[in-house]
């Protein structure tokens, strides 16, 4: 598959995530959109990893492990995302406990 396809697909997903962050006001959904962005990155990394692998193969290195690092990076991203989710949801829940809402528009005690 041409790498450009993956790039565009990922970028599209990434931007959809951004649009979600911009347009929604439910904190949980915003957070989900961020996860979507991370997944777009993951996809891109995997695609690149395979691209580099292919490049190395074509260069004649049959036993190459080029591109492994990309996939491992994805693994770490997932790890971090998991940790982030636990903390993030805890914060959202705490917020909800206090003001019974997860609407970010209500987050305006702090301004100016």
């Amino acid at each position, binding site marked *: *598959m041409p*790498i*450009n*396809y*993956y790039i*565009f*697909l990922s*970028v599209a*997903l990434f*931007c*959809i*995530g*951004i*649009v*979600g962050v*911009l*347009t*929604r*006001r*439910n904190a*949980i*959904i915003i*957070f*989900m*959109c961020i*996860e*979507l962005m991370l997944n777009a990155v*993951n*996809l891109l990394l*995997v*695609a690149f*990893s*395979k*691209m580099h*692998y*292919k490049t190395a*193969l074509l260069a004649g290195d049959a036993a190459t*492990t*080029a*591109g492994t690092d990309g*996939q*491992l990076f994805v*693994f*770490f991203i*997932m790890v*971090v*995302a998991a940790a*982030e*989710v*636990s*903390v993030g*949801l*805890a*914060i*959202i*829940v*705490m917020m909800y406990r206090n003001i019974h809402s*997860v*609407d970010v*528009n209500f987050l305006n005690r702090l301004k100016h």
Partner: protein
Amino acid sequence: MSITQILFWFLSVVALFSALMVITSKNPVYSVLWLIATFFAISGHYILLNAQFLAIVNIIVYAGAIMVLFLFVIMLMNLNKETEPQKNRWQKMAGAVAGGCLLLVLVAALKDSDIKQQQALVNGGSIGLIKNLGKELFTTYVIPFEISSVLFLSAMVGAVVIGKKE
């Protein structure tokens, strides 16, 4: 058009469509479900790229664990209705336009990059297999791996700090 290509297009369309549905669904629960659909599509891509390990982890961790957690929280908060009132339309519009512009700009910037001729190897290569990744992870990447434990520890402590009732 080979089967791989068909699959690629199919998965791409699914991923994009469900991603769009995530951000447009009124009901948060639907959003979660659409997001899970997206993750599945992405996992499909991983499989297509012969990155089985990540595909599995993606489904288990993301779709399985994380999204369930989301769903759980949403349910806990009783947000499974269309609770969200209409957001300021101008802001929505502005958000969509800004995001669109960003997409446009990124695509325009990247479309002529020097690697546009290159291909991602589909359906082949063994680097995505658990054996290879594991070997690499526990040799070269052992330090980051250990470090991520600190991350988890802090996340754990954090969850305790935040969650514990006073």
